């Protein structure tokens, strides 16, 4: 089956516009605001210009859905110090982490320009390959991502990686941060679009405690434009009927208990710990740290590097902590576009190409709508 046949129906203009028409007819009286928590959802919404298609009374805002954006600068600084202080280190990183500044606007990209050995990889297995090819060097992989990438990190560590390989774990998990946000009472949304990729791993049941605790409508959605529109319709129906449940629009992929094998691997290798999210603060039980039996792969312990304390994780004037909560739009921040740009980002939402501000900068559709 070709890629096109897999996605064609979910991008069908007629189907999408028809469904939008139905939504317009049925839900024209009130204003609605929904939050998704996934960079890929924001990419879908923006890349396909969906905000431009939806009626003005239905708003979709982006929550903390980009693992790169919310990676705390302390972790980046740690990797940079490792490069500076230890000889013979190769740092491997995913492409979207490459330009993310820690503090003082320095990033892996700057480190590479200064002569440090930084390599962009597509997966952790590429990092392993580099370690095997360079056994006179230490390869440190910057392991970042939600439950989507954590299982492959776990699986790699369980398959006897070479001795010169270790990781800095910056992995984070999604349900705890939703819990944290909803508990804060700061996000005024009527429902959540839940991330399809993460849910593929953790399953739809993983969000049930949120539905019980906060009585909020939630729909797991896929990543094609029609997926998002269907999910919105399902949320609107729930709001209308006064329901507060978890529904699964992405049934073709997401199962109630998720990927059991992937979850088992994660549990073997990682333990939950409190973790700092850039722009949000410390979120209980949201980080994944290596269990003691995997210490020899923990670069922080292996190289005895101290975690630098960075209390100020965004710059003055940056409204990323509001953007991440859906309280402000990128265009409402005075730094946006004027001084804060993808090539000189001042806050987490601009740093990764999955960040809300970066996507708004790149695709500009938010401003197109307000015009």
């Amino acid at each position: 089956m070709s890629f096109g046949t897999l996605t064609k129906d979910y991008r069908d203009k007629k189907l999408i516009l028809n469904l939008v028409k139905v939504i317009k007819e049925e839900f024209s009286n009130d204003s609605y605001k929904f939050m998704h928590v996934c960079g890929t959802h924001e990419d879908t919404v923006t890349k396909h210009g969906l905000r431009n298609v939806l009626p003005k009374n239905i708003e979709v805002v982006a929550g903390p859905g980009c693992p790169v954006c919310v990676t705390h600068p302390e972790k980046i600084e740690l990797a940079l110090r490792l490069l500076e202080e230890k000889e013979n280190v190769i740092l491997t990183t995913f492409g979207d982490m490459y330009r993310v500044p820690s503090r003082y606007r320095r990033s892996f990209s700057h480190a590479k320009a200064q002569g440090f050995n930084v390599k962009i990889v597509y997966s952790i297995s590429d990092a392993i390959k580099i370690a095997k090819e360079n056994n006179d060097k230490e390869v440190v992989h910057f392991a970042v991502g939600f439950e989507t990438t954590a299982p492959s990190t776990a699986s790699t560590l369980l398959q006897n990686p070479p001795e010169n390989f270790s990781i800095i774990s910056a992995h984070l998990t999604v349900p705890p941060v939703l819990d944290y946000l909803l508990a804060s009472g700061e996000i005024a949304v009527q429902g959540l679009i839940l991330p399809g990729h993460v849910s593929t791993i953790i399953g739809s049941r993983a969000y049930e405690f949120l539905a019980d605790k906060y009585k909020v409508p939630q729909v797991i959605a896929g990543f094609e434009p029609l997926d998002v529109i269907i999910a919105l319709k399902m949320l609107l129906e729930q709001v209308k009927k006064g329901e507060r449940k978890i529904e699964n629009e992405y049934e073709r992929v997401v199962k109630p208990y998720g990927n059991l094998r992937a979850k088992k691997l994660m549990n073997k290798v990682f333990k939950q710990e409190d973790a700092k999210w850039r722009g949000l603060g410390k979120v209980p039980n949201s980080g994944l740290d290596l269990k003691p039996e995997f210490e020899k792969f923990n670069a922080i312990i292996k190289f005895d590097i101290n975690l630098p304390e960075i209390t100020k994780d965004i710059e003055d004037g940056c409204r990323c902590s509001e953007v991440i909560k859906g309280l402000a739009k990128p265009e409402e921040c005075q730094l946006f576009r004027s001084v804060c740009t993808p090539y000189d980002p001042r806050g987490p939402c601009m740093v990764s190409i999955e960040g809300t501000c970066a996507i708004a900068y790149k695709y500009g559709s938010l401003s197109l709508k307000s015009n």
Partner: protein
Amino acid sequence: MNTEYIRLEHGGGGKLMRLLIENLVIPSFSIKKVEGGTGLLEEDDGAVIPIENGYLVLTTDAHTVKPLFFPGGDIGKLAVCGTINDLAAMGAKPIAITSAIIIEEGFPFSQLKRILDSMNSTLMEVGIPLVAGDTKVVEKGGIDKIVIATSGIGYTKDPIFDSRLKPGNLIIITGPVGRHEIALLSQREGLKFEIQLESDVKPLWSVVELALKAGRITSMKDPTRGGVAGALNEMARKSNVNIKIWEDKVPVDEEIRGIAEMLGIDILETTNEGIMIMGVAKEDAEKVLKAVKSTKYGRKASIIGEVEKGEGIVILETSTGGKRIIEEPIGSPLPRIC
């Protein structure tokens, strides 16, 4: 500029590179063009030098590529095509090229011969000579294997500039988008795909020559680094018009689209080495399209958009019925993790 040293992104063909050129490179030179022609300030694909009975067009490029040999081409073919296509984008018939080759100590003779043969066969295809050259060798580690710089000279009666789009013009693209960059990425990163992907690197003079005869081309640009997004933005900005692009009309090979989406790369920002973007007078558009399609390298050409009054932005009407702005890329595209 906040950084004091060059980062890789400064060479990515995006906004960072433009700012470097505009803020540092161009201001460093006092005489920027030949009287009566165009030069540095126009930042076009080549400079225009008036002569009796027409214009000479002069262009220069340095080429590095990893890997040196890739499906569909190699650094030699790339160097020759890059220069020929820059001349073609100015509407100029290529006359001759020169090349300077810098080689790292230890580079195998056999590979150098392969590269030179490839340059020769590309030049033979277009029927132009290489008339001068320079060869330098640097110590091991001085450069990465080999760098080729080529300059080319061409002739035209009516040079075509990337700044002359007019409202009402239609936009033609001569072939599918994204093939060079995706083919290289898949080689460079050892990504294993079942399909063999080939770079689109091609000399485009034959395509442009026929197109010029078929109708009025107002503006042209080859979307190399920075891709279609970069080229369209540059044309829109310099011409002070808006460009509207219909996403479902942009030709993209299905497997290339799939891989680009999988890697999280915007296909409109990927480098191409064998396609041209043309602004064409509306009434001539079908004629030009037909001419382009009749050529070997233009079979998949398509009219992808139109030029409107405006202040220099590029708008995409998405295939799902939405609308968004296509921004100028920042640097080279980087893959996403999820």
